[in-house]
């Protein structure tokens, strides 16, 4: 009840607090919390494993999605274009590939729910039990 209430409240504020982004993993993943740096290293290709050395697969949203720009801006301080250029540099050098891109947040949640090693980001929203939040990004608005 309480949870619902909070969700409603949060939903009610969602337009105002839409910058709030959640980093989620499969509910079976033993990791419960992740540091900001660990998230950056995973999403920016520096690291491909969770802190417990389990392999990790990053999931991204399609370019041009508002939550994507917000996520990267909040996480790295870089614009979406800068992040794309960053990946272009690495891809051009070879052997590196950017995170797999999905079309919308529902696909992302579904993928995370299905893949124990997946990690992704979504706007704050009610989530199914099959995923869990390891970090919250508060957009400093």
């Amino acid at each position, binding site marked *: 009840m309480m949870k619902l209430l909070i969700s409603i409240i949060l939903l009610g504020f969602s337009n105002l607090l839409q910058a709030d982004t959640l980093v989620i993993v499969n509910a079976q993943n033993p990791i419960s919390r992740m540091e900001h740096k660990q998230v*950056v290293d995973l999403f*920016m290709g*520096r690291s491909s494993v969770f802190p417990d050395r389990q392999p990790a697969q990053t999931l991204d949203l399609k370019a041009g999605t508002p939550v994507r720009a917000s996520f990267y801006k909040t996480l790295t*301080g*870089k614009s979406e274009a800068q992040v794309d250029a960053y990946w272009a*540099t*690495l891809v051009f*050098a070879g052997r*590196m590939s950017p995170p797999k891109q999905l079309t919308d947040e529902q696909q992302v949640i579904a993928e995370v729910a299905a893949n124990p090693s997946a990690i992704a980001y979504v706007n704050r929203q009610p989530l199914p039990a099959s995923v869990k939040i390891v970090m919250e990004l508060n957009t400093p608005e």
Partner: protein
Amino acid sequence: MNIKSLHIKVSLSVAAAALFVVMLSSQFFYKSSYESSFSDSERSVQQLLETVQTTAAIAAYVGNRELAQQVVTGLTQNDIVVGAQIIANNEIIGQDGKTSSDAKQTLISIPLIAPFDDKEKVGQLAVTPNIALIALRARDSAMATTIGLAAQGAVVALLVLILVYWMMTRPLSYLSGNLHRITPGDGKRLDVNSLHRGDEIGLLAGDINALLHTVEKMLEEERQLRHRVELLETRFRGIFEDSSAGIFLVRELGALVTANPAFFRLTGLAEQQSANVANNDIIARVFLDHEQARALIQLALASQLPQAADLRIRTGSEVNLRWVHCIFSPADNEQQGTTVEGVMYDVTQRKFSEERIRELAEKDSLTGLSNRQAAESALVELIHQTPINSSEFAVMMIDLDRFKFINDTYGHDAGDKVLVTVATRLRKMVRDSDIVARLGGDEFLLILNHAGNIGMIERIAQKILDAQQAPIEVQPGLMEKIGMSIGIALYPQHGDNSLSLRKHADQAMYSVKRESKNNYAIYNPDEKATT
């Protein structure tokens, strides 16, 4: 053009100064240019690193060796970089070319910062700059700058040289050359380009011309003056040389300074001879009366007035006497010191005619004895000279016996012969200083100087009488003896003047004639009454 020429000197000075400045400044500029060029290159390397910094940081961040290799390979493409490497997590993830370890060169490195976290240092990018190339380029650049500078300096020096030559040295050497060709007096003047009319060169030329003008004027005046002096000298020399009077200059002690030809003609000295004896006493050589000549010279010097006298000069023989009238004038001058100028001319003829006149006046023409006037004046003179109490002299009045008879019998020639013979005998009987005179007719007068005592006078009188014992050849083959009566009067006992002396001698002589004849008698005052 010789090495001392002004132009060469100026050229060398300017060249040396330019060389000095160029060397000094090129050294400075080479150094600064080299350093600036070198630091430019280093900055280029730095900029190069900054260009690839982001990419290198990404490579280091993700540990991507491919990307790191791309970056370092790209860096070593630059010829100012010989080696590059990217280190991440103490591991070289990209390297190309030489590294610091084998090149032993300074590394230029920048830290690589994580792309998403400014605080995290993810690695390091280091390059080995191509120091040799950089240095070479710096040298080339510095050299180019320096050469440009030197060339500029040389051009400026050359320009200065040309201008100095054109505006100063050339006109000066032109002036100098012209002046060198001018001889003062030839009327030439320096001409100067109108370009230099107002400046120092023009002024110099003008002053030199004025100086030349002055010098020429002075030379001309000098020349005219010399001409006048020469003319005067010629005239005076003519007078000196052609004069019939002997002109000579002697020093105080008699050394000859100079003399004209007439002097040598008169004295009979040769000019060379006198030159040899220049320091000898010419006075003693020339004058017979040299004591008197010397006295005149001293007098002329002492009185500073001309002194003149008739003097005898030496000739070869004593018989051939020559007289000169000589005037000595003091003639001091600065060059010669104390000198005396002498002028002499021949007065021998005049002297001889004077003597002749005196002889005519004083001598008896027949016998050569003194005549009455001469005897009279000699007697007056002697009385005048002889003090009354000092000594005495005698006057003898002589009259020949029988002269009238001989004259009448044998003629005047026989009488004259008797008179001449008696005169000769009388002259022989007495001293030279005694005076023997014929008073006229057969009357003679003897004046015996310093006669001494009566006895001596009587002896002389007796000797005279004795001498008449020898007969005289009045006509060829006809001999006659002549007696004489002698009357003696003594000075001063028998008279203190000529008149009384002669009168008393006369009286004594007549007393002899009256009594015995051919005898002598001394005046006896007591007989006065009887005559």
